[in-house]
């Protein structure tokens, strides 16, 4: 009996160790430990054992069973590990094969530039508003201190729209395609809600033939701040902050006197060339500076016309060309590309 037990144990252990699949291992378990297994059979022949030996033999059988079970578990783990490793090995892929991502679309560079500008001004507490693109003469010119005979009103620069009041040919056109977003200033001031901090992006139109630097249709961003005690120093501070946010912390600004009918004093703002940092390069034509926007203190006459008391309130306004910023920032050398919509162009943004 003892020797048979030993024999079964020996064989079982060696068979288990040689086993290489989970199925065979299971078969072995059944053969050895199952209801009709060898060890079970052995236990059944216990009656042949002398009663005084039974506890001892029983213990031996149980020990053998425990050992076999333990080895079975160990080998199960071994086999599972081997199987997993084999599978992982079989599943090796070429990670350099192309990706299968779904391609996202791309924003227009004008919009990317606009959203950057919007983000900066929203952060400074400005509201983004809009105004009409087809506009009354009053808002585009008159309310901005641009009198009837001003050269800017010439048909050469302004697209007029055939309207009821222009019947008869050479009459006065009072509806036009706005030539600047500045008219939105007037709309905002007329609402009578003060203080005002707004920017107004939008499409404008000028009678320019299409070429690399001109388009009859382009975009501007207008800004307006009206409050008590707004100063030219505030204008400088705000726009310097804006320039640093848009072009980088190192950016310096320069204000030059200029003239706009609807601001006084007026200025143009230059920023240090973001290619050469102000040293002078081909990009900034050697000057180290790039002209970026026009600005000034809102003309008292403009405030008055829009129903704001210039003795109590002051304000500043600024305007910039969106395309100019996009062209500069992304180094686009031909404005026509912006309106052609070639996907190979758009994909680069």
């Amino acid at each position, binding site marked *: 009996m003892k020797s048979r037990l030993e024999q079964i144990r020996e064989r079982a252990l060696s068979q288990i160790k040689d086993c290489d699949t989970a199925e065979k291992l299971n078969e072995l378990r059944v053969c050895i430990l199952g209801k009709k297994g060898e060890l079970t059979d052995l236990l059944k022949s216990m009656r042949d054992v002398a009663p005084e030996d039974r506890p001892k033999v029983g213990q031996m059988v149980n020990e053998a069973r425990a050992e076999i079970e333990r080895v079975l578990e160990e080998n199960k783990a071994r086999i599972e590990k081997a199987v997993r490793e084999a599978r992982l090995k079989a599943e090796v892929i070429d990670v350099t094969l192309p990706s299968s991502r779904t391609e996202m679309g*791309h924003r227009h560079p004008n919009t990317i530039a606009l959203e950057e500008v919007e983000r900066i001004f929203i952060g400074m*507490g400005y509201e983004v*508003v809009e105004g009409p693109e087809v506009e009354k003469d009053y808002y585009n010119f008159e309310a901005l201190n641009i009198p009837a005979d001003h050269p800017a009103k010439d048909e050469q620069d302004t697209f007029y729209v055939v309207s009821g009041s*222009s019947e008869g040919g050479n009459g006065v056109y009072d509806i036009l395609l706005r030539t600047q977003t500045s008219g939105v200033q007037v709309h905002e001031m007329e609402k009578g809600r003060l203080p005002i901090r707004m920017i107004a992006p939008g499409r404008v139109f000028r009678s320019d033939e299409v070429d690399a630097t001109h388009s009859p249709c382009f975009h501007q961003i207008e800004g307006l701040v009206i409050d008590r005690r707004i100063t030219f120093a505030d204008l400088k501070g705000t726009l310097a902050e804006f320039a640093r946010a848009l072009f980088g912390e190192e950016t310096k600004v320069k204000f030059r006197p200029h003239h706009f009918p609807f601001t006084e004093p007026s200025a143009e703002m230059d920023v240090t060339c973001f290619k050469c940092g102000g040293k002078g390069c081909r990009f900034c034509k050697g000057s180290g500076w790039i002209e970026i926007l026009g600005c000034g203190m809102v003309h008292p006459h403009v405030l008055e016309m829009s129903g704001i008391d210039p003795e109590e309130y002051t304000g500043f306004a600024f305007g910039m060309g969106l395309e100019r910023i996009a062209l500069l920032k992304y180094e686009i050398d031909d404005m026509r590309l912006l309106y052609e919509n070639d996907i190979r162009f758009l994909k680069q943004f």
Partner: protein
Amino acid sequence: MNTALSWIKAYVPGLECTDQEYCDAMTLSGTKVEGYERRDRNLEKIVVGQISSIEGHPDADKLIVCQVNIGTDTIQIVTGAHNVKVGDKVPVVLDGGKVAGGHDGGPLPEEGIRIKAGKLRGVPSQGMMCSIEELGADRSMYPEAPEEGIYIFEEDAQVGADAVELLGLHDTVFEYEITSNRVDCYSVLGIAREAAATFRKPFVPPLVNVTGNQEDVHDYVSVEVQDPELCPRYCARVCKNIKLGPSPEWMRKRLAASGIRPINNLVDITNYVMEEYGQPMHAFDLDTIAGHRIVVRRAKEGDRFQTLDGQLRKLDSQVLMICDGEKEVAVAGIMGGENSKITENVHTVLLESAVFNGPNVRKSSKRIGLRTDSSGKFEKGLEPHNAEDAINRACQLIEELGCGEVVGGMVDVAQPMPERKRLPFKPEKYNRLLGTQIPEGEMLEMLRRIQVEAKASEQGTELVIPYFRQDLNCDADIAEEVARFYGYDKIPTTLPSGEATAGKLSYKLRIEQKARDMAEYCGFSQGMSYSFESPKVFDKLLLSEDDKLRQAVTIANPLGEDFSIMRTTPLNGMLTSLAVNYNRRNKDVKLYELENVYLPESLPLTELPHERMQFVLGFYGEGDFFTMKGVVEEFFGSVGMAKRPQYDPQAGKPFLHPGRQANIKYEGSVVGYLGEIHPEVRDHYEIGDRVYVAVLDMPSLIPFTTFDRKYEGIAKYPAVGRDISMVVPKEVLAGDIEGVILQRGGKLLESYKLFDVYEGAQIKAGYKSVAYSITFRAKDRTLEDSDINAVMKKILNGLEQLGIELRQ
């Protein structure tokens, strides 16, 4: 405006600075320098040499060998020029020096041309004699220069001297951008005044004496202004015994640097004064003026007139003319006539210095198609006092330069002239506006330098504005004068104080931002196209004659027919962009745009048109109708439009495939449409692939959008699914079936999904097989079969009414 710095310095004698310092300082004080060019750029080691002998070249017939004395030495120069003779004094560039250009007068090379000693056909040559072109100068400035070949100096030129200095080329020409409000700065004196104030140096304008003999100009000529509104002042003086000849070198050089070709002393003087004072002048031959009478009046409609450039110009009744006793002799402010021009035989000259209405000159010049230096100045609106100063200056020069004898007196027909403006001096207000603390005294000093005088009055200090500053009218204007001479750069930088405001996008802009995000997420890239297009677009899109979309806003003065109407549909822009891509063989192109259409309430326009933002998507290549439909629904989901949109195939869009189009409805309202582009329309745009578009009308859609979200809980009880398979008459749409499911499914209906559509052999003719999987769920309990059966029965009853049979 271009001016030599030497001319400015003539009136600001203390001005000493480098070109760059001048450029920067002037720009920062408001006279913007566009650029400048040194006239001696690339001129190095050029001296006056005297030719002491000339011999032939042993091996070349066309070359000569000269010995040239350059003061310190005598050098040998071989040249091909033949206009020199022994004793001539010439500009000589020495070994290692530089000249500006070649002898052919072509474009000047950036770095000039370096001259080195060498051999010409075997004979050593130690330098080069220069022509005017090689010195980079304009021949018109040097009328004495020979037509061809080497420049030859006057006999008194000193051998060995700096030839560039002698030619007056150590100078710099500055180009200014003058803003439209500073009419006074369209003149050398105006700029000099600014320069003097900028550099805090004295301004010394020319001293003008009113000259003239004992005669009275009124005996020579009379002037009548019939349209004083268009001619507020007309000054006339007469000069007799005119002796034409070249003007002096200094005048020629200044004019040439300003881009004006010197002609003769008389013409040059009028041009010189125009530049100096900003006041155009005209000289008539008095003997051609009938009746010695000047009449200023409008032309007659349809008149023709030959200007002195020989062109015949058509006039209209808006054009102001200068006439004599019989005929027209000049287009006022623009150009004189052929019939009264100065010829070599002139004896007596009538000088005109007038002020014409700026806008009228501008419009006339445009209508007759002639823009001149003179009209360019008048357009800006000139100041009437200046006209008198300028004509007196011209007469003074005529006398000084021996050009003629000035007749005493001036004919002056003038409207009452404006007084000098007075403004109260408000230093605190200026400081408050600027955010500065500039002391009063400093302000007054700055203002004094630009000739704004301070006068004490009962109300305090008053500022008296000079005539020429028509732009100074209010406190803000004075504040700007103070600011620009104080220095914009010295004004502090602060941020606005006061009430905080919340920055934000308008709701409309937020929705548009979502639209962009979603379109790009779905693979569409953003395009932009012009707002105006051709009226031919309507035919390309197969719109019927009476289609409302043909009612477009028309531009009165378009760039051309292709840009003449404001678009009423975004489709042409989209199809044009897709066509560009198709034509360039770009594959699978998906584009979107967010642009306005402009819909007039009625035509002709009496009020502003409705601007409606359109979200248009279009693609060709991979995908189909349902791809586009998916993008639309994805967008709806992203802006809180959670309900199922309906699709009505009866959209009636002529530009879409008749069987593949639908209006998109949301809660019963049409918010847009989608479909496949009609093949004929595709042909018009030359796109050889199917094109799908969707157009969403944002104003219709925005009322249904929301950014509010509410948590509705996660279902606790299990869902129960039922599949139904149906045989459906072909004309019944999936949307009809879904309508029934949705309507009859009640509260228990959670979702439904179409999983099969089949038409074919196993299905009887005129029918199709459709299968849906429907899911039910209750929030508060597990559904029983009986619950489901009751709902399903209602649904099936409804479907039966559409002629649908349940498939067994």
